[in-house]
């Protein structure tokens, strides 16, 4: 038993130890912001902000760097992934909470969480060795034959069906991010007050109508938050996409075009940029991605937070 005085001092000591540990979180965020900004500064001062974001040439020989293609690539792959992932995720959440019996729902829930646990490099491996060849041999030619003839829409399916393109990358991404929205949606659906649902049933609504008109509106903010979370994740994915995107610095002209994203560019070029300004431009991209992710994740978490407070 320590004396009272010693106890007091140890308590104070422990207070500071825990406080500093908690403070590390802030330190890291601020640290990343400052370090990325410092390293990116030569590129920022040379290319400016607007010009860098909207210029599409990435020319290390002529030292003209513009981030438009990877930024657009990041946003495009993420949105394409969301288009598939969000309905699927909501469907899964509905299934788990409203349709399936409790045991089955739990098992499916756990299976979906396992999808989230698979490391992204494994997705990349599988994408390169299994999905891309399947895409190249069967799926993409099939889609091209079926839909390529339609005016306007057909343009999306034109091009060389290599399997190494934005289409394959987005599919893999969509599978990866489905669990995030599904988990948030499921948690939100579970806390809808039963009395609201019961009154709707009491008026003769079908199950789907209850879901559509009671549960969804009630959980609007959470669902948006979940979508934002998935988007934030998709923006930052590297390994799953690096194997199958092709790193071509051009805007995609169809679903079957290779292109580049910020993360894939970083993975490919970071340790190898021999010119200082090239490395600074890469840091500039990293900095922009950091800001984008922080913003989207911050806003999404805020939405989820607000609804939880209720």
């Amino acid at each position, binding site marked *: 038993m320590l004396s009272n005085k010693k106890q007091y001092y140890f308590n104070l000591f422990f207070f500071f130890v825990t406080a500093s540990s908690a403070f590390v979180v802030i330190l890291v965020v601020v640290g990343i912001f400052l370090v990325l900004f410092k390293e990116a500064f030569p590129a920022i001062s040379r290319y400016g902000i607007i010009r860098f974001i909207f210029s599409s*040439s*990435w*020319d*290390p*020989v*002529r030292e003209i760097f513009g981030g438009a293609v990877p930024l657009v690539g990041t946003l495009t792959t993420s949105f394409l992934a969301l288009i598939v992932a969000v309905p699927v995720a909501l469907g899964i959440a509905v299934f788990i909470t409203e349709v399936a019996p409790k045991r089955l729902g739990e098992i499916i829930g756990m299976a979906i969480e396992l999808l989230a646990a698979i490391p992204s490099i494994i997705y990349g491996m599988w994408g390169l060795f299994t999905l891309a*060849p399947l895409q*190249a041999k069967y799926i993409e030619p099939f889609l091209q034959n079926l839909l390529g003839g339609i005016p306007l829409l057909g343009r999306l399916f034109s091009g*060389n069906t*290599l399997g*190494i393109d934005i289409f394959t990358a987005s599919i893999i991404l969509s599978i990866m991010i489905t669990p995030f929205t599904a988990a948030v949606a499921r948690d939100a659906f579970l806390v809808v007050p039963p009395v609201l649902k019961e009154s709707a049933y009491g008026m003769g609504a079908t199950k789907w109508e209850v879901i559509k008109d009671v549960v969804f509106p009630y959980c609007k903010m959470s669902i948006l938050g979940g979508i934002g979370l998935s988007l934030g994740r998709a923006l930052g994915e590297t390994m799953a996409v690096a194997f199958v995107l*092709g*790193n*071509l*610095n*051009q805007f995609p002209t169809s679903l079957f075009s*290779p292109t580049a994203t910020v993360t894939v560019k970083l993975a*490919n*070029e970071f*340790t*190898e*940029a*021999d010119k200082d300004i*090239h*490395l600074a431009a890469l840091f500039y991209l990293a900095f922009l991605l950091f800001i984008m992710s922080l913003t989207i994740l911050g806003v999404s978490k805020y939405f989820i937070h607000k609804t939880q407070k209720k």
Partner: protein
Amino acid sequence: MKKMLTFLILAVFVLSFLVFWKGAEGASEGKLINGAGATFPYPLYSAWASDYHKATGVKINYQPIGSGGGIRQITERTVDFGASDMPLKPEEIEKKKLLQFPTVIGGVVIAYNLPEIGNKRLVLDGETLCKIYLGEIKTWNDPQIKALNPKLNLPYKPITPVYRSDGSGTTSIFTHYLSDVCPKWAKEIGSGTSVNFRAGIGAKGNEGVANYVKRTPYSLGYVEYAYALQNKIMVSDLKNRKGKVVSPTPESFKEAAKTSDLRAEKHFYAWMTNAEGEKAWPIVGATYILLAKERPQINKQVIKFFDWAYKNGDQRALELYYIPLPAEVKAKIREYWKAHGIY
């Protein structure tokens, strides 16, 4: 339960401490040398390192991250030596306070995947390659390719040119050649370890290009010869400067190397592309080692390895279709080392 947990945690801490301690001690100076850079000579350096380890016990950890990476990492002094197929100009060497010398010569070949023509050899030339990589020639049965290959049954399929997405010396050799034979290329794209390619898909490292070409029908890519050889990928013949069609062989590589001018005063800066000889292969280059001038202790260890390789490694090189440096050049390199106090 609580006691077991505490014991477990303490055991983990103590064990880890022991492992880290032993690990940090176990690696003494000179036992592990870290290098990084070009994928061009990687199969050879790796084989040399393996032999050297057997002979002396010293580990050479060479990481193939591309010539751009080799240059970057030695400039930042994060590795013991860098490797690059793109030689740095003497002014840059002085500015970055480096030393540079070549180790071996190799040929860059055009690997392709064309199921229709089976084992028959494709013939290409500089201008055609140029147009393919500019995206101007889009299909295999284009008249320009047909003209070079009148007897082949070329299909109406799109060509996918594969290039290097990372900072690559092989790219610099290839684009140096294209800039030489193709004014449009020189004007619009230029040469270097990383250029603004307009068509096709990018792969990481020579091995990445080889991988894509191997698995993707109707694709074509530039690789160092060992990669095509080891993976049994078809490679084309090329029409050289003299208009003769040559195959990639050690002899045609040697012919190209003959005309090069490797001198210590210029830190051995030289190009061997589009060489003059009748039988010369058009895309040949030397690959270099970069050292940080102010680290004599480390450099001495690195030199020991390459000196050993000059003496004992020629056989390995030839097995993999690399060309060992001629004896006069090796002597010049040893003089260079002596002059900088590391030999």
